[in-house]
């Protein structure tokens, strides 16, 4: 039995000295570290000398009963593997103990072979339970790694809101421009909630054709429609115990809005083509970049559904309104793509950083991420330079010194010349002036080819 070793420990709690002595002797010979306690008070004291891999606990003891003690021991060590020892007459109590989380029970006298295997199995289970706890902690840590990057006051407030709302089962509506990271926020709420060990099921309502959305959300039975060869679970069924994230919820049709409202209210639905009522325990997080209030006024979004979904709203500001978040986001994406591309993490030149911070980012964080990924492909280590950035950002390079017509003209000509690689003919075409005029302006503003 390779698992038996001195590192394993057993606590024996029994008021009968012969039972304590014989078990203690038996397990010591097996190489276990053994502790013995005659009653609940001593057992609770000995818990401080733990952790104990297995606790053998007599059900009937003077003072606090074994059942009561079991509860207290479990409060101290949730994963404690407790084996109840009982006389034949108290099997009912042993069954009760099992219901309350005991690993197993043995009746006195116990077959040595049975006891030996039981203890080994209990140790195995405790090991698995401990590993499980450890892995869950690791999962939580991993979830933190991907947490929202942002140092601006707006993002700090959002992070605080995520922490608060995650502890509840409230429906959350996330609003913000495209690319601001609404799904990331939904995931952050999910992984910080008690539902984190169940899945988060994202549904992009805008990307699924109207005809398929019902089947996608509620599932369908075999033969429900042409091509439905097999039964399929819907997203609401998949999200049982977890969270369903309805992205672009503002795009769904009025017919589907009615269905959605009913499911949100009852948590029950039937698969397309089926009769069985399915109950699912899910939390709803939805997101939209539409002006839902205007949609309600227009009559394209149901008011009752709007109030059902709009319980707790998080507004994600566009990136241009929180420029202090740009540098930390850049560094976050640099690390991410350095790992993905197996390239050394690169620095970013001050000039390139300045351009990125000044850019307005109409595509928000998604656009920023794409720009950094592209730059990582093009850049030569150790640094990302302005030339590695796409044109729309480079165009911000030369901005007029002031608002005078001459300054604006100089900056614009310089940008076009850079864009065309100082191809005078092409630049003149773009500027819609003749080449001579362009030469004159270059001379006038003292522009020089780099």
């Amino acid at each position, binding site marked *: *039995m*390779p698992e*038996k*070793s*001195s590192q394993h420990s057993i606590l024996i709690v029994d008021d*009968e000295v*012969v*039972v304590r*002595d*014989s*078990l203690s*002797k*038996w397990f*010591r*010979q*097996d*190489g276990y570290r053994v502790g013995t306690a005659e009653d609940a008070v001593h057992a609770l004291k000995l818990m401080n000398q733990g952790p104990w891999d297995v606790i053998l606990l007599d059900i009937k003891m003077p003072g606090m009963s074994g059942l009561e003690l079991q509860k207290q021991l479990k409060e101290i060590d949730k994963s404690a593997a407790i084996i109840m*020892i009982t006389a034949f007459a108290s099997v009912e109590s042993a069954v009760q103990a099992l219901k309350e989380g005991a690993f197993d029970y043995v009746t*006195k*006298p*116990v*077959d*040595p*072979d049975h*006891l*030996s295997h039981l203890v080994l199995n209990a140790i195995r289970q405790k090991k698995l339970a401990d590993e499980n706890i450890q892995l869950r902690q690791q999962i939580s840590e991993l979830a933190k790694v991907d947490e929202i990057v942002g140092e601006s006051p707006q993002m700090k407030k959002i992070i605080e809101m995520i922490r608060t709302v995650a502890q509840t089962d409230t429906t959350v509506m996330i609003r913000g421009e495209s690319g601001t990271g609404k799904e990331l926020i939904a995931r952050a709420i999910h992984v910080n909630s008690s539902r984190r060990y169940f899945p988060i099921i994202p549904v992009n309502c805008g990307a699924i054709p109207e005809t398929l959305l019902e089947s996608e959300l509620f599932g369908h039975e075999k033969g429900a429609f042409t091509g439905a060869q097999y039964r399929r679970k819907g997203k609401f069924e998949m999200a049982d115990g977890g969270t369903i994230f309805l992205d672009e919820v503002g795009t769904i049709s009025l017919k589907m809005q009615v269905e959605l409202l009913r499911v949100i209210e009852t948590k029950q639905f039937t698969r397309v083509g089926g009769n069985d009522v399915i109950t699912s325990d899910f939390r709803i997080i939805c997101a939209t970049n539409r002006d839902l209030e205007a949609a309600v006024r227009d009559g394209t979004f149901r008011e009752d559904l709007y109030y059902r979904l709009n319980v707790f709203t998080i507004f994600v500001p566009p990136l241009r309104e929180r420029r202090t978040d740009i540098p930390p986001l850049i560094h976050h994406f640099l690390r991410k793509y350095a790992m993905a591309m197996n390239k050394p993490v690169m620095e970013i030149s001050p000039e390139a950083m300045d351009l990125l911070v000044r850019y307005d980012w109409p595509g928000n964080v998604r656009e920023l991420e794409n720009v950094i990924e592209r730059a990582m492909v093009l850049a030569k280590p150790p640094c990302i330079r302005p030339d590695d950035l796409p044109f729309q950002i480079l165009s911000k390079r030369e901005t007029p010194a002031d608002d005078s017509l001459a300054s604006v003209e100089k900056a614009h000509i310089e940008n076009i010349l850079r864009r065309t690689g100082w191809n005078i003919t092409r630049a003149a075409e773009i500027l819609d002036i003749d080449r001579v005029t362009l030469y004159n302006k270059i001379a006038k503003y003292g522009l020089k080819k780099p």
Partner: protein
Amino acid sequence: MPSVFLVPVIPVDDKLLSSVVDPLSMIFGIPVIIDNTNHLDPAFAFDFSRNQYNSTALIAALVTLQVRQTRSATSASSSDKVLGITSVDLFVPVLTFVFGEAQLDGNTAIVSTYRLDESIYGFPPNPRLTQERLLKESLHELGHTFGLIHCPDYLCVMHSSTSVEEIDVKTARFCLKCQEILEKKLA
């Protein structure tokens, strides 16, 4: 150098008891003597409700015997080991039965031949097999008195056995690791 005293706890099969003297002496490298002067009647340890004998009570009686013997015999030493051998069925209160019991790192142990006998399992008697099993269990319990604990090596005689099948799988030898510990104790 310590000696091992084999104490007959009646009833016991003398032939079986005698059969383990030489192998035990050879394996431990110490004298093994049958103590015919100290027969022990186990009646006091009988439990009517279980129809078995309490091995812990018998160990306690064997300890008393040993103390008396050490006091009376000049040749006896306090490091001597006493192994009671009996053919009655043994138990410890919390377990349904035991093949034997020993004081870990102590001087006294007891072994029963009752459950080592094929006939109690409905098979034809096999004295040779019972003899082999008795030798293994005697080595095992005496090993405990030398401080050895159960060994994970399933071939080592110190491997824990809760059935005769497991006794039959292991050998009548100590593994290298247990042998090393044993030699230190015997040195």
